[in-house]
């Protein structure tokens, strides 16, 4: 059997400890721990559906070993906000029609947040580049761009993303 060890992850501000084989990816670990808002799309780093924030930067959790991010702040889309208090990006995605099947949405919102953490006033080229690792098959990206622009405005103004 592969070697196992206790791994303590900090997910959405909560500490969770699990006994994991050393080769366990962050994607598998998070989903096994119940963070199923992190989506599995390809497990090869091609599609971005599994993106999470690690210390504010989006990474593909399928390409990251769980044990390698111990002690760092992991944020999934559900950690950004909820129905009662949605994050401006979540609000904007819903309000702009940027959500269709929604399977790519968690990864896209995480990628957009990673962008806005570094670049609060992104140009369209900034957005294009930041989202280029996240595949969407439903929307043609048009309303996703609208949503990111609206959320960036809202975050800057402290206003409503709608």
């Amino acid at each position: 059997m592969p070697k196992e060890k206790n791994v303590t992850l900090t997910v959405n501000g909560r500490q969770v400890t699990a006994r994991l084989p050393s080769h366990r990816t962050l994607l598998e670990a998070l989903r096994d721990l119940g963070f199923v808002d992190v989506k599995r799309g390809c497990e090869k780093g091609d599609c971005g559906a599994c993106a999470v924030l690690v210390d504010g930067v989006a990474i593909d959790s399928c390409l990251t070993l769980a044990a390698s991010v111990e002690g760092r702040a992991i944020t999934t889309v559900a950690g950004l906000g909820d129905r009662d208090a949605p994050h401006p990006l979540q609000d904007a995605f819903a309000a702009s029609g940027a959500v269709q099947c929604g399977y790519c949405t968690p990864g896209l919102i995480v990628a957009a947040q990673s962008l806005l953490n570094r670049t609060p006033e992104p140009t369209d080229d900034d957005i294009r580049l930041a989202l280029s690792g996240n595949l969407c098959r439903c929307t043609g990206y048009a309303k996703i761009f609208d949503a990111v622009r609206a959320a960036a405005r809202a975050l800057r103004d402290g206003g409503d993303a709608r």
Partner: protein
Amino acid sequence: MTGTERARDAGANIGYRQIGRPLIRTDAPGKAVGKTPYAGDYTMPGMLHAKVVRSPLASARLERLDVVAARALPGVVCVLTAADLPDRLAPTDIPGQTGQARLKTDQQILVRERVRYHGEPVALIADESRDIAERAAGLVEADYAPLPGVFDPEEALKPGAPIVQGEDNVVAEHRIRKGDVAAGMAEADLVIENTFRTQFIEHAFLEPEVGLAWVDENEVINIRVSTQVIEHFRGIADAVGVPHNKIRIRGALVGGGFGGKEDVTVETYLALLALRTGRPVRLEYTREDSFLGHGKRHPFKMTYRTGVTRYGRITALEVDMIADAGAYVFLSPYVLLYAVVAAPGPYRIDNLKVDARAVATNNMFTSAFRGFGGAQACIAYEQQMDEVAKAIGMDRIAFRRRNYLRTGDPISTGYPIQSAVWTEDCVDRAIEALGAPTPAASPVRIGRGVAAYQQSYGRLTFLHDTSEAWVGVEVDGTVIVRSGVTDIGAGQTSALGQIAVEILGVTLDQVVIYNSDSAVTPLAGTTTATRALYMTGNAVHMAAGAIRERFAARAAEAFGVEAREIEMADNRVFVAGRPELEMSFVDLVTLCAADGVHRSELAIFRAPFSDKLDPETGQGQAHPDYTYGAHAVEVAVDIETGEVTVLKSVGAHDVGQAINPAAVEGQIEGGAAQGQGYALSEEMVYREGELVTPSFSEYLIPTAMDVPQIKSIILESRSGIGPFGAKGIGEPALTPVAPAIANAVADAIGARVHDLPITPEKIVNAIAAAREKEEG
């Protein structure tokens, strides 16, 4: 620059409160905060993990299959091979919801002896832990003897070609004989012939196939699965060998479908393993499993021979089509029929001859994909329209205008169109929206292209399609909609909610929609064929309308007026111009509840029923109705490298009535991106039947870097046969995009690449060939 324009606002005075508005879809907020469970997010205590072992060869005899070592691996609970299964077949024809006889196309569940395509399942494994599955699969010992295969449909038609299955390789044949083609050709000043080819295309939905099955206390096999079609429960029951009421499919919101989750995927495997082990079983495909596991879009070879006068009137058209059906039949006969019906496009061609065959090969089987044959036909007929215009030296749009089908004209099958045909408006507005040409300097050239289309919505009328929905009003005034419809991401359920609350005069936040459970939600049919809004929307309209009628009668009694004077809107019930006669919707519901007024209704909507088309002439009614529209693009082509950049992309469609304009735009934008991939970058490559593009590193769908700003122009003729005059837009949004891009590239480089995808290499070669020809 996403904009909605309303043209010919025939219903400007229609006072809709809920439909026609870009409301936030009921499913969107939950998805945005990561709350929505997809089929793969469900687990159960004691659950096993399953894996499918697949054939590495495309054409072979399975000589030996030894699973002793796999079964002996600690943690392996069950390994199934064909030897363990009763001698049953899995139906692959359309689900039997309509009661129409199925085609005799059932296939083996697991390979018994003959392997017919790369990836065909040979064994199923269920393990205690996901980690064991890979190792167990590696312990399955299989000896294959390669057999001669056939990988090209034209080769497959030649005498002596290996036979994939049955007596010959012809899977389906359809034809049209209309008017007098010989006389039409004789009348022509010029006859133009071209052959166009399209490629295998992968749906590339982001959520791979996944499901969870368990046997419940009533010995019902429950399957929670990502599917477009919960009514496969009948075929799954037949395959497993249980009565139809012992399979229950519980859908979930689907992470993308596009036709790729229209056939059965993991369900039968899950049912067999759950039944055999008595334990819950979960099966999730990897991306490679997904690429290997479900049918692709049919490659077509289409030869068009058009007779035309020098003034641009089409006098006759002859079309020959060959589609690659792959190793099993699945929906090929229907896809082929759609292509045949669509063959002349949105043009009136009275002398028409179409011959089409779908041919078996040892390539991956092909089946449903958004556009369903109609998309392939459009790629041919719209490129041919440009080529014919060029040959007679006529403007491309003027030539089209000379030949458009008009409202009331007979289509290819002789059936007169009942709804409005606004092709001309759509084409003109799409082109107009491109605006001034983008300047460019050598070696970049700018090109423009347009494509118009005719695409059906609703299933083939000979299938006698129906859809059911139930609407109920709770005593606190909230509304429940129940319908088996699956929601594959286009807002199918939300639209049903909008329709119900429009009729009942309440707001969208008052409704909850339960969907896609084959045992408890009224059966609504499939979410395919651009039919969900049309069919189930009409059923909801009927159900809500019946409740409204009863409620209005009760309100009329309370107010002492006629029922027809009662209005319901914004959670209020009132009489216009009589401010004293008003109550809240809840108060009316309370009155109705006290009197025992029936507050719910189950409705069934029936599409028009017809006989099959005449097999000799292809004449008759094929579909309930058609959507018309156009897509226009501007591209930049670097003539040295062959690189294409799509600069502008505009879809203009008459959707009849937009129920939710934001959702309609979403369809148009998504169709624009998918069509761009179809035209330029996507191809599932099979080498001697073996898939050589098994991941998103090789199979390139458009990213945020590739897709331009897309403009949507929504026209509303209110002439459709869906609720409130709606037509369908799901498939139509995709259909004209690839040919518009092909025409734009040809416009830019002055030569045509006849085979999709239009890669840089093909462009450079086409330019070189054109130069050689010029230089003689």
